[in-house]
């Protein structure tokens, strides 16, 4: 599938006012607002366009599977540092559109932190190039990063350039037995110290902590963190990234994004903590969880849920009227007829 074919499809939809449902591998069909519109499958627009290890970037077409990208990077000892989930066959376009990062987010940053440039087909079928392939670029508004997490509502990401980083020389995972409260206290204390913590995961009385960096630094940190057991955890971290770990079983699954220092909520259904306490997973049906999260300075995402619940409840926390109005104006700036993934981010647009 060529860029021209994507452009023609969007133009035709624009002309006929036909809503489009953008789709890569469909690995995140469960995520966000309910699906609607005519499928525009862009998985055929694939392939790595440029990879320059010493310039620390990779440019790929939207349909390129993350697995293909990560294989190419691994050959040069590099990685996508935000450790995105694959959920089967995720593509780079869907990865950026959904903006989901994995365990290393707490150390390396979010998807948007690694987006250097995008080639976008806007809602009128126009091709727009934002950003580029250099690390620093402040010419013009940073539309490339705005696109990350926009759920395909601002344009078809036809191609993207991502910053890549070297893989750490050494990694080691430690396991501690502790309860939720102690884990949160410890994670916040450690976060204020120069320790090479690249991931954290608490579930059912156990805390896993991944150290990444120079070999000597990892060993020194492991020693400093005191009594614990060292585990071979490569598979565990993949199961956390992919949410195949039993902690993520059950629906509805809520993702709470909170200031890491918020103490244990005392709400039933806690499944796991990640990102030093800044990401928390709940699997029960806490009626008021959105209000709780908002009151504590964060927000709750209805991450996985049966369709019956997704019909009633938006996936993402509601916006203030002023912010919603601003979102609508921005949406209109890129997609004046509202044909791209309508309702996938918010029901209102």
């Amino acid at each position: 599938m060529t860029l021209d074919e994507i452009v023609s499809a969007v133009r035709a939809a624009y002309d006929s006012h036909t809503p489009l449902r953008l789709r890569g591998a469909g690995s995140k069909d469960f995520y966000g607002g309910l699906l609607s519109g005519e499928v525009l499958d862009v998985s055929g627009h694939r392939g790595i366009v440029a990879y320059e290890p010493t310039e620390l970037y990779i440019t790929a077409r939207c349909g390129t599977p993350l697995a293909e990208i990560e294989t190419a990077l691994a050959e040069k000892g590099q990685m996508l540092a935000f450790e995105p989930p694959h959920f089967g066959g995720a593509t780079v376009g869907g990865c950026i559109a959904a903006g989901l990062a994995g365990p290393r987010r707490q150390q390396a940053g979010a998807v948007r932190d690694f987006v250097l440039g995008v080639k976008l087909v806007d809602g009128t079928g126009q091709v727009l190039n934002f950003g580029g392939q250099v690390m620093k670029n402040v010419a013009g508004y940073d539309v490339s990063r705005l696109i990350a997490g926009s759920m395909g509502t601002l344009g078809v990401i036809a191609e993207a350039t991502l910053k890549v980083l070297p893989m750490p020389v050494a990694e080691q995972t430690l396991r501690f037995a502790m309860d939720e409260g102690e884990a949160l206290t410890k994670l916040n204390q450690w976060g204020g110290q120069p320790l090479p913590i690249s991931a954290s995961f608490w579930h059912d009385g156990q805390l896993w902590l991944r150290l990444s960096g120079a070999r000597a630094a990892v060993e020194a940190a492991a020693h400093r963190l005191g009594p614990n057991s060292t585990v071979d955890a490569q598979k565990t971290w993949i199961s956390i990234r992919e949410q195949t770990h039993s902690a993520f079983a059950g629906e509805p699954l809520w993702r709470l994004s909170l200031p890491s220092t918020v103490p244990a909520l005392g709400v039933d259904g806690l499944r796991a903590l990640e990102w030093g306490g800044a990401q928390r997973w709940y699997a029960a049906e806490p009626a008021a969880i959105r209000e709780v999260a908002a009151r504590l300075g964060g927000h709750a995402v209805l991450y996985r849920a049966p369709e019956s619940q997704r019909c009633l409840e938006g996936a993402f926390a509601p916006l203030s009227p002023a912010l919603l109005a601003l979102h609508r104006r921005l949406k209109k700036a890129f997609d004046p007829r509202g044909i791209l993934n309508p309702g996938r981010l918010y029901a209102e647009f």
Partner: protein
Amino acid sequence: MAKMTTNDKPDARTDLPALLRRLRLFLPAQCLLVDEEDLRPYECDGLTAYRELPLVVCLPETEGQVIDILRTCHDLGVPVVARGAGTGLSGGAMPHAQGVVLSLARFNRILRVDREARLAVVQPGVRNLAVSEAAAPFGLYYAPDPSSQIACTLGGNVAENSGGVHCLKYGLTVHNVLRIRVVSIEGEVFEIGSEALDAPGYDLLALMIGSEGMLGVVTEVTVKLVPNPELAQVVMASFADVAQAGDAVAAIIAAGIIPAGLEMMDKAATAAVEPFVKAGYDMNAEAILLCEADGTPEEVAEEIARVTEVLTAAGASDLRVSQSEAERLKFWAGRKAAFPAVGRITPDYYCMDGTIPRKRLAEMLSAIAGMERKYGLRCANVFHAGDGNLHPLIMYDASQPGNWERAEAFGAEILELSVALGGSITGEHGVGIEKINQMCVQYATPELEAFHRVKAAFDERGLLNPGKAVPSLHRCAEYGRMHVHHGEMKFPELERF
């Protein structure tokens, strides 16, 4: 010195008495400047070649006053230019002749430093370095460190998405700000971002940071603080050839090392710096590299060993590793003093800010050498080598007729070559008014139109910092007519990105 103006088209004249009547309803006398001698200090920012007197300077002390000022300007159709410390290098804070300068200088309080949550909440007029100073007792600091950090403010850093020598490893402002409070031109207050790691909806934080005061006025900033590294050490390497130094930079990255800082200076820069700072730079070298490792002592020792190995293999003619904190600071002192040092050997200098892929460095430096001959002006090069961000310092004498115009043309050619080499016209200083024409080179009409639509989504009447950052299509058409002769592009041999 030539006087520059921003306007693409003559703006409506502001009814000054009517504006003052409205402003005086809520601003006490000490918050309002109208006399020419009081306005004069605001006529330019760090880019002194571009000057304009505003009609009025407002110095609000509360967010409520900011809201009222913006509402008033919106009602009356008066342009507003927000201003921090005025240290910017692209004329982003240059006033509008028919407008108000909105100075956030009195928003200078650090509201909260939270040790456990590792964040600070500050007002936009707080100086960059003051944040790290306030966090120091907790073993924390604010990572982005533009070289103007003793003076520049957080509000300005947000507007420009400022970087610094450590951003290769620690990121730019956009990677280190968690939340901002913004007042729109209509006087509406938005909270963007949060103390959590993300917020619902579009990533407006990414859009606002680096938007050069075009989308809103920031009244509060929450930044991330990071633990001070236990140790930092610098390797200083000499090279007999700039291309070799450029290759050495690529070799460090290829070896899987992301240093805390990776800076390069050419011979013209070290020659200016050494007599001034006595940093111990190798005066015979064509280029020197400074490569900093930070972290735990174990980590630093391991990285320094690997860097030393890579630089030796890359052909460094001399290598020195800082043996004490005092020596590390001495090595850096020269780099940090590069601008003032160049200022000592020339009446004026003009600092550029292009970014290029690192591998095109040697090509760029040899092109700059050619431009020195073409324009009859000297140029010293300092370079955030790790992230491909060049700061050529073009030396000129503003008192000589035609000198500034040549410096400006020299700078424009560097920027346009940066784009042609696959880079950008600005890595961290912003477009402002300075690079407004080069935006027409970096972006085509559809992207510029999209930027104007984004602007309109926030500021429909175009009252916030008009004429900056994004050129009108009319302006680009004019610039294109001046620059493209007989359908010939510049640098026709180069691939376009």
